[in-house]
């Protein structure tokens, strides 16, 4: 029989990271993500990994990227204002194509806001917080078990596409404790980044021949000579001002995510078969929605749920298909309407789009969602 354990979301995230093979954590503790740093401080040394508390969030993000460039799967976690500080180096990892997982346990902002209260106010920052055109992968868990399993998936996507992945938790799931069925060794897929068999005789590190989208490069310092820079670079990693290279390089970064949407995007559809109303939600908000839909269904209301698990890239075609079948979509999120914008962009005039959001630091209750759905 599988082992069932009472775990906190933050704790499950740490265990998921270890399962995925993460062996380096650098961070600067901040509520409500602190238990991830605390957990890594205890667990990393037990499995031969390293934990380091840096002087701030900027440095800890840089340390995680550095460790990963050298070949060790790495993670950093933060909340609130810490996520703003991580943005600079997030872009650096996008362009240098260094995989790592950045966890944001969202809390109410702006600024230091309400440190112990839930929010999903960083969703657009996740997409555009670091400057310049770049793609991003962001995943949002709704249960403690998902904090574990989806953290493994974050690492897998990061390794496969050599790109940073954002694990967009929130205070609701981060500080929630519930039971987790621990996966056994080998049960979940674990992907390691591809590397050349003979680094010394491998070609330029960033070269992507034959229309490939992800470079196959050796960990830094293991025989293949290349440079790492946040400037637009040639195939061996040295800076260039070539407009052609700038164009092809950034377009390739975007294409490596865009052209693999079907592999990257996962979502949950529930009770949609006969639904005339669909509630769109993600992360901790889904817990309120599950209970609300149970109540509404018991009253005979035909309501279903669409929950993007991968929030970025946004599951456009999946939602578009739903919007052609239902009369109304209600977006529920703990912000003033961020993913709402994405839903409106995708749905256009296919059906009515309504919104329920909260920014006062409290959780949207099932009753509030029920009332919203019942509004004509």
């Amino acid at each position, binding site marked *: 029989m599988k082992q*069932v*354990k*009472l775990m906190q979301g933050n704790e499950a995230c740490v265990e998921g990271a270890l399962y995925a093979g993460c062996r380096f954590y650098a961070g600067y503790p901040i*509520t409500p993500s602190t238990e991830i740093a605390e957990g890594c401080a205890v667990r990393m040394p037990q499995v031969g990994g390293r934990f380091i508390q840096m002087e701030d969030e900027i440095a800890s993000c840089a340390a995680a990227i550095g460790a990963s460039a050298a070949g060790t799967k790495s993670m950093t976690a933060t909340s609130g204002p810490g996520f703003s500080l991580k943005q600079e180096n997030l872009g650096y990892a996008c362009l240098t194509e260094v995989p790592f997982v950045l966890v944001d346990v969202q809390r109410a902002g702006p600024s230091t806001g309400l*440190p*112990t*209260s839930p929010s999903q106010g960083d969703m657009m920052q996740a997409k555009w917080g670091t400057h310049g055109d770049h793609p991003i992968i962001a995943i949002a868990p709704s249960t403690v078990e998902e904090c574990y399993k989806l953290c493994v998936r974050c690492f897998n996507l990061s390794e496969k596409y050599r790109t940073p992945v954002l694990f967009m938790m929130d205070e*609701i799931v981060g*500080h*929630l*404790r*519930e*039971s987790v069925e621990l996966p056994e060794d080998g049960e979940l897929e674990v992907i390691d980044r591809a590397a050349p068999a003979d680094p010394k005789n491998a070609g330029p590190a960033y070269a992507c021949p034959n229309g490939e989208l992800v470079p196959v490069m050796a960990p830094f310092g293991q025989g293949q000579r290349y440079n790492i820079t946040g400037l637009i670079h040639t195939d061996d990693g040295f800076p260039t001002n070539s407009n052609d290279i700038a164009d092809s390089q950034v377009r390739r970064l975007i294409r490596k995510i865009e052209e693999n949407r079907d592999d990257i995007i996962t979502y949950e559809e529930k009770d949609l078969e006969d639904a005339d109303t669909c509630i769109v939600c993600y992360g901790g908000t889904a*817990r*309120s*929605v*599950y*209970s*609300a839909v*149970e109540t509404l269904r018991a009253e005979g209301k035909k309501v279903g749920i669409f929950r993007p698990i991968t929030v970025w890239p946004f599951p456009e075609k999946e939602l578009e298909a739903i919007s052609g079948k239902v009369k109304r979509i209600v977006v529920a999120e703990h912000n003033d309407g961020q993913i709402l914008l994405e839903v409106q962009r995708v749905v256009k005039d296919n059906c009515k789009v309504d919104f329920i959001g909260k920014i006062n630091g409290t*959780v949207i*209750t*099932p*009753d509030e969602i029920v009332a919203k759905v019942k509004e004509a």
Partner: protein
Amino acid sequence: MSKMEIRLAGTGGQGLITGTIILAEAGIFENKFVAQSQSYGPEARGGMCKGEVIISDEKIGFTKVTKPTFVMALSQLSFEKYCYGLSDECFVLVDETIEVPADYQRKNFLKLPILATAREKVGKMQTVNIVSIGAINEILKLSSFENVKKAVLLHIPKGTEELNLKALEEGAKLLTK
């Protein structure tokens, strides 16, 4: 279906969040679905604090307590904030030091010397949460005494086992004597 929504409220430092974690752990030993959460302020201790746990036979959607079936208050402020507007069936447990207005009438209401038991009988104020767990489990019959014991031992500092098990027993005795 049985679903219990439990809220423990008091002052930061009383260990009530740990208390709800222990109840959740004991619930898992009884093969129940559990969801435990908390709210507290940025201060380390002294602020108002509440821990919540839902223990259910079925999978849990919304994870916060909305219709409490049991509330315990260990401070005057938390009594005033959390012990009103409850359903008729909800069980309210308060410490004997709480000033309860004469017109506060409930079907299921109990005043117990929880703080005094921790301070005097167990001899350590920090065990107030474990004394509470002992009493609560006797009232609600959430879990076997053995499973509660096991859960307590998982969530206390090493070297305090004897003290905390005594606290658990003294808490239970408040109901059985």
